C-alpha cells in the first residue's frame, strides 16, 4: 500500500515487474487477528486525503510493516544547540544554518538523492575548509530519484478517533486521541504536550513518533508545522546495548575496590573479606578449614584472653585545624569539647538536624587548635561533606579547616590483656603506665625514626592501643606488631569478631544498631548529650514531643532462655503471639554467641524497652518461638576493669 497516487521510482517499477500489486492512494484502516495479526483492511484515500472512499479491501497477512519515509537525522545539530527549519516541500525538519564549527551535509540536511548530496557536500566542504578546487567538483551520478511525495500525519478512518486507537508512540502507547486531548486541555507548548502524553519519551526518544505528533499538533492547532517548536532530539538515537553503557566495568571492574595498605598481608594470611562501603575489610581469618563461626569464636577468645590485632585503617579520619576548632566540635557533637586537654581523646556522637544519630567516633586533641576526628568507615565521605557544608553555609564565621587524612594513616589496633606488653616491645621508650598514658589519651612517638601516634582507646572493652602511622609504613608496622605479639599468641581478627567484642560491651555500631530513627536517648546514651551547651546539630529536635515519647523504640540487651540459641539479626520481637494482629515491639539489631560469656547475646530495639528490663519477650521464627529476657545492653565487664587490666 502506498498513500501516494503513483510512483515511477525504480523500486516501484521492479515491484510491478515482479507482479507485486501496489495499492496506490490507499491506507490501512483496520487490522484483524487474535494475539497476532492475520489480515488488514484497506481503503482508498480521497483526493484531499481527509477521508477514505470506496469499498473496504481485506488482505490476509502475517506481518504489517510501516514506513514513515525519510526524516533527516538532525540530532547532532540540535544537541549542539542548533535550531530547525521546516522544509515544506519535503515535509521534514532540516538544520537551520548556524555560525558554528559544524556543517550538516547529506540526508541529515534534507538531501536524499545522491547527486544533490555530492554537489552540496563538495560546496559546503569547500567553504568550510576554505578550499577552492577539489577532485569531486562537478561529479555526475545517475540514480533513481523519488519525486512523488505525499504526507498525511493522521490517516483518515471511518471509525471515530475515540473508538479506535491510533498509536503515535509505539513504546509509550500514546495515541492521536491523547495528543488532541492535550491540546483541548490547553497545552500548547510542544514540551508540555510531550510530557503530558509521554509521546517521544521512551527509549527511542521519539524516533518513531515525534514527526507524527508534531504534525497532528500543527493540524489540530491550525498552525504551520514547526511554528510551535520542536522538542530537542536526543540520544540514544540508535539503541545501545547494555554492554556499551557498562563499558569495561565488568568482572573485577564491576565495583570500585578500596584496599588498606595492609591488604596484601591479609590476603597472604587467608583472610575472608567483607565489603564495607567500597573497602575490602578482613572479615575473619579461618584456620585449617574453620567455619566463620569457629574462626570468630577463636579470634574473640584470643582477644579477651591474650591479644588480638585489627586493621582499623578504614575508619574515616579528618584533620581539623583553626582557632574555632573546639567551638566547631561543640556544635557538631552532642557533648562538650572545650575542656578536652591536649593529648586526650573523647568519644562523640553526631546527630542529624532531626536529632537522630548520624555518626560516631573518637576525636583527639593534638594541639590547642588541632584535632583529629575519626568517623565510621562507611560514613567518612558523607561526614566530611556535611561538616564542610556547615562551615561554608551555616557557620562561615568559624575559623576552621578540614582535611581528609583517611588514606594518609594506617591503623593497627592491638587489644587484650597482653597488649601493653606487645606495645612495650615495639616502643620500649614509651612510658605506658596508667599515670603517664591513661585510657583515652595519645602519645606521639617514633619507630625506627618514623613518626607514630599511639592512642589508648578501645572499641572492645579491653586494654587497647591504636597505632597510627603513614600508610606507606602500614604493612611493615603491622608485621612488627605480629612479630612482637608472637609470644603472646597475638591473633589477627576481622570485622565479625570486632562486632562481637563490642556487642559484649554494648557499644553501638551506627548503621547496624541505628537506622536513622534513633536518638541518643533511644540508645540509652543520654549521658553523652550535654545539658549545658547552648546548641549543637539536632539539639532542638531532641525536645520535640515525638522524640521525648516514652514509648519510642529503645536499645536493650536480649538474653535467650536457651543460652545456646542465637537469634537472627532482623528478627521481630513480640510479647504475645495469641492476640491478632500480633503487636510488633521491635527487632534484633545485633546477635552473636559470645565465647567469653559462653552464651548467646543480642542487642535489639524494643518499644518502651528502657522500662522492660527483666521482662520476657518472644521472637517468633518460622518453626518455633524463641523466648528471651530483656537485659542491660552491657553484657561484659560493667565496671570497665578490663580497660586497665
Amino acid at each position, binding site marked *: 500500500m502506498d498513500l501516494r497516487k503513483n510512483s515511477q521510482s525504480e523500486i516501484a517499477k521492479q515491484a510491478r515487474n515482479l507482479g507485486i500489486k501496489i495499492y496506490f492512494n490507499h491506507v490501512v484502516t483496520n487490522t484483524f487477528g487474535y494475539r497476532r495479526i492475520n489480515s488488514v483492511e484497506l481503503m482508498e484515500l480521497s483526493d484531499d486525503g481527509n477521508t477514505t472512499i470506496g469499498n473496504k479491501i481485506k488482505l490476509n497477512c502475517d506481518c504489517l510493516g510501516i514506513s514513515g519515509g525519510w526524516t533527516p537525522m538532525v540530532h547532532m545539530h540540535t544537541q549542539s544547540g542548533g535550531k530547525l527549519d521546516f522544509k515544506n516541500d519535503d515535509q521534514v525538519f532540516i538544520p537551520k544554518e548556524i555560525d558554528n564549527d559544524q556543517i550538516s551535509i547529506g540526508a541529515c540536511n534534507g538531501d536524499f538523492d545522491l547527486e544533490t548530496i555530492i554537489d552540496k557536500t563538495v560546496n559546503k566542504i569547500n567553504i568550510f575548509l576554505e578550499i577552492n578546487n577539489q577532485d569531486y567538483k562537478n561529479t555526475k551520478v545517475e540514480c533513481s530519484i523519488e519525486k512523488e511525495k505525499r504526507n498525511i500525519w493522521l490517516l483518515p478512518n471511518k471509525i471515530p478517533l475515540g473508538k479506535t486507537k491510533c498509536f503515535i508512540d509505539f513504546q509509550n502507547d500514546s495515541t492521536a486521541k491523547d495528543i488532541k486531548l492535550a491540546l483541548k486541555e490547553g497545552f500548547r507548548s510542544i514540551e508540555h504536550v510531550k510530557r503530558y502524553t509521554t509521546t517521544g519519551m521512551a527509549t527511542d526518544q521519539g524516533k518513531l513518533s515525534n514527526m507524527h505528533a508534531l504534525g497532528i499538533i500543527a493540524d489540530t492547532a491550525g498552525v504551520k508545522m514547526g511554528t510551535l517548536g520542536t522538542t530537542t532530539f536526543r540520544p540514544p538515537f540508535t539503541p545501545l546495548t547494555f554492554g556499551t553503557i557498562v*563499558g569495561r566495568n565488568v568482572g*573485577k*571492574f564491576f565495583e570500585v575496590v578500596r584496599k588498606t595498605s595492609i591488604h596484601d598481608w591479609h590476603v597472604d594470611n587467608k583472610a575472608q573479606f567483607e565489603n564495607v562501603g567500597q573497602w575490602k575489610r578482613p572479615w575473619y581469618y579461618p584456620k585449617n578449614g574453620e567455619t566463620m563461626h569457629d574462626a570468630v569464636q577463636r579470634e574473640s577468645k584470643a582477644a579477651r584472653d591474650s591479644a588480638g590485632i585489627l586493621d582499623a585503617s578504614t575508619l574515616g579520619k579528618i584533620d581539623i585545624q583553626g582557632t574555632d576548632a573546639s567551638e566547631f566540635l561543640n556544635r557538631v557533637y552532642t557533648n562538650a569539647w572545650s575542656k578536652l586537654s591536649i593529648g586526650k581523646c573523647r568519644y562523640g556522637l553526631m546527630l542529624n538536624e532531626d536529632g537522630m544519630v548520624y555518626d560516631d567516633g573518637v576525636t583527639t586533641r593534638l594541639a590547642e587548635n588541632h584535632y583529629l576526628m575519626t568517623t565510621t568507615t562507611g560514613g567518612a565521605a558523607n561526614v566530611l561533606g556535611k561538616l564542610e557544608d556547615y562551615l561554608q553555609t551555616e557557620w562561615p564565621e568559624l575559623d576552621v*579547616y578540614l582535611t581528609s587524612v583517611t588514606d594518609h594513616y594506617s591503623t593497627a589496633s592491638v587489644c587484650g590483656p597482653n597488649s601493653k606488653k606487645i606495645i612495650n616491645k615495639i616502643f620500649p621508650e614509651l612510658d605506658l603506665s596508667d599515670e603517664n598514658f591513661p585510657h583515652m589519651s595519645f602519645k606521639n612517638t617514633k619507630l*625506627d625514626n618514623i613518626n607514630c601516634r599511639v592512642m589508648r582507646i578501645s572499641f572492645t572493652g579491653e586494654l587497647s592501643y591504636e597505632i597510627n*602511622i603513614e600508610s606507606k609504613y602500614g604493612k611493615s608496622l603491622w608485621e612488627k606488631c605480629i612479630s612482637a605479639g608472637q609470644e603472646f599468641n597475638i591473633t589477627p581478627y576481622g570485622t565479625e569478631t570486632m562486632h562481637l567484642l563490642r556487642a559484649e560491651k554494648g557499644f553501638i555500631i551506627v548503621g547496624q544498631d541505628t537506622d536513622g530513627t534513633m536518638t541518643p536517648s533511644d540508645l540509652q546514651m543520654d549521658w553523652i548529650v550535654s545539658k549545658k551547651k547552648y546548641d549543637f546539630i539536632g539539639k532542638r529536635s531532641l525536645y520535640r514531643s515525638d522524640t521525648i515519647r516514652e514509648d519510642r523504640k529503645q536499645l536493650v540487651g536480649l538474653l535467650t532462655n536457651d543460652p545456646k540459641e542465637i537469634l537472627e539479626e532482623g528478627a521481630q520481637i513480640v510479647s504475645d503471639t495469641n492476640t491478632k494482629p500480633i503487636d510488633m515491639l521491635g527487632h534484633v539489631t545485633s546477635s552473636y554467641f559470645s565465647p567469653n560469656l559462653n552464651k548467646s547475646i543480642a542487642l535489639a530495639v524494643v518499644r518502651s524497652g528502657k522500662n522492660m528490663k527483666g521482662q520476657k519477650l518472644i521472637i517468633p521464627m518460622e518453626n518455633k518461638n524463641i523466648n528471651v529476657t530483656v537485659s542491660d545492653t552491657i553484657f561484659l565487664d560493667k565496671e570497665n576493669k578490663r580497660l586497665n587490666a
Partner: protein
Amino acid sequence: MLNTHYPQITDNKLNDVEISLQEPISKINLRGKSKEFFAKVGKVLSLILPNEANTSSFSENFNAIWLSPDEWMVYFKNDDEKVIFNKLYSEISKVNYGSVTDISDQWICINLKGSKIYDILSAGCSFNFDQFLKTDGLSTQTIVNHIDVILHNKNTYNINLFVRRSFSEHLCLWLNDSAKFI
C-alpha cells in the same frame, strides 16, 4: 627497620599510553585565607599560590594546585619531606594563619604520558578535556571510573594524576585495561 610499601602499580606502556608510579612524592594540603597565610607560604616555598580556579603554579621545587578558594595541594620531590612540612606547620598552623596537613600518603601520584591519555580518561570520565589538554598547568578535580582524582596537566600529553591511596590499585588496573581498547 620499617619498610615502605606502595600500591602495586606496575609501570606500563600500551597503545601510546605510558603509566608510571611517581612515588615517593611529598604532598601537603594548605588551607587559609589571610594575607599572613599567603605571605608565609610565599616565604617558605618561594611560590605564589594560584588564585584562579583549576590552575596551578610552580617553582623550581614545588607545584601548587588550586583545590578550592582556600585550599591548595603542594607537591614536590624531596629527600627530607618533613623539613618543609614542619616549617610550614610552625609558620602557619601553630600561629593560626591557616592549616597545614601532611597528605603525602593520602594521595598516590601516577604519571600518564602519550597521545592517547585523554582517550583513556574519557572512557571513564565525563570531564571535557578540550581546554585542559591545550593549556599547560591546568588542574581539575574530577571522577575517573567512579573514583575521585586530581589531574594536573604538566605539559602536552603529560599529566600527573592524584588518586587516594586506597583506590589507586583499582584505578590503575582499570587504566591498563582501558588502554587495551583504544
